[in-house]
């Protein structure tokens, strides 16, 4: 039997075209900041290991890191689901939070500063290396052109 007789292939929907459309929508939404969301960064943590060899991984990783770096240390709405003694319990929780906030605000704000500096440092390094690589590539192209002209 000819090997060509037993190859597996069947024409169907052009999934490449559908994917191109999806990916261009994703690219547009990314530009608009639709995915600049800590929930996306959180969801992406388990997937990053599979992306590390991809071109553009570092840029994506850094954007995910930036979204996740800042801890929300502001006041939040304190509620009580149990109807019984609800006002009392809310007041108790608010008191506890106000006491804790006195200590934690300083600690967490410092942590946010450190996280922010780390991310900025990494982004700066990334940009500088990108810039150097571009300059080196341009230089190589120029030298190659000069050598071939000779």
């Amino acid at each position, binding site marked *: 039997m000819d090997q060509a007789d037993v190859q*597996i292939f*069947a024409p*169907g929907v052009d999934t490449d075209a559908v994917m191109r459309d999806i990916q261009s929508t994703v690219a547009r939404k990314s530009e608009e900041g639709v995915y600049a969301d800590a929930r996306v960064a959180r*969801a992406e943590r*388990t997937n990053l290991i*599979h992306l590390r060899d991809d071109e553009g991984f570092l840029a*994506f990783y850094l954007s995910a890191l930036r979204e996740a770096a800042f801890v929300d240390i502001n006041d939040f709405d304190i509620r009580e689901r149990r109807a019984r003694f609800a006002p009392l319990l809310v007041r108790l929780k608010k008191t506890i939070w106000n006491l804790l906030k006195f200590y934690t605000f300083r600690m967490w704000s410092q942590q946010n500063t450190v996280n922010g500096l780390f991310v900025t440092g990494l982004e700066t390094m990334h940009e500088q290396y990108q810039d150097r690589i571009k300059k080196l590539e341009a230089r190589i192209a120029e030298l190659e052109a000069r050598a071939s002209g000779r």
Partner: protein
Amino acid sequence: MAKAQRIAFVCPRFAEHGTVGGAETLLKALAERVARSGREVNFLTTCATNHFTWENTVPPGTRTYGPLRVTFFPVNEDRDVGAFLSIQHRIDKRQPISRADEETWMAHSVNSRALIQHLRDHLDQYDRIVTGPYLFGISYFASLLDPSKTVLVPCLHDEPFAYLTITRDLFRAVPRFIFNTEPEKTLARRLYDLPDRGLVVGMGIEDMPVDPAAFARRHHLDQPYIIYSGRRETLKGTPILTAYLQAFRERTGRDVRMVFTGSGDIEAPDALRPALLDVGFVSEQEKREAMAGAVCFVHASVNESLGIVLLEAWLAGTPSLVHAKSVVLRDQCRRAGGGLWFRHYPDFEEALLRLLDDPGLRQRLAESGRRFVLEQYSWSAVERRLLAALDADA
């Protein structure tokens, strides 16, 4: 008379009832098919059923299961598991290891002296020895007894074991292969610089009539749901799926649920738990019904050599959404025209929104996937390729 009339299938485990693992299910199904075609088949396996302990739990000897004559042999009990695991750990970490260490690793992998001795004693009585997957000692040593008779079913993935020199030498010594997909064959050719040999065979999938609404009705599920079937573990990508679904539900406000069939703990955020339905092991009929009612079948594993569940989902009339890093699953989606893929969460969100909001696209993908399985993975098509692979010249 066919060139391969008397055939030994060699496989690490045999499942009397149900599934033991993808590769073992595949070998058993292929062996049954060959036996039904009128050729003489002897299925040689071990007495082990647990793939962690490899303890000999079923009695040795020959028994008949449907069309198959199965002979069980004990796993070597003197294997040095410590040495095996220590080397395997280094292989996993992609640390360089010597040829001697590779051989030690293989020697202390799952082996059965009794099975290999049986093959050696009866070598003249077999025209072919069909064995796999490639990384088990039992398959390795059976393959090399008389490579001119060997048909390797490698179930090859792009993984650290594939880069060992003993693996390379095994692939170069064997003249016949049964691959599950074209990407698997391409990977083998690329890694071992092989000529174009071996056929893509795959596994036949039985069609069965299913009511797409039956599962949801039975489980009082009124919301749209996505489904995953199989083992739930990090290697299969299930934590990615639950993390993505949680983000999807929070960001879009859509009440999309997720159904799991199969085994293992589900790693998921606590807030997502009420949106998950874990039905565990179910009958084939119920699994197909669950698939048929889903928006799509999701698979985030990046290391698959066939993806039987993907084929089952297509046959049930459901499109798929797979991880783009899985060369095999993405290629299958492309060939079948039956599914989409995602590189990261934004792709996942956009693709799932399309599948939810564009019933026309969903239906076209579903129909195309189903047609692909009926044409390419019916047992008659698979059997034709299988027998061609067995009868191929060395």
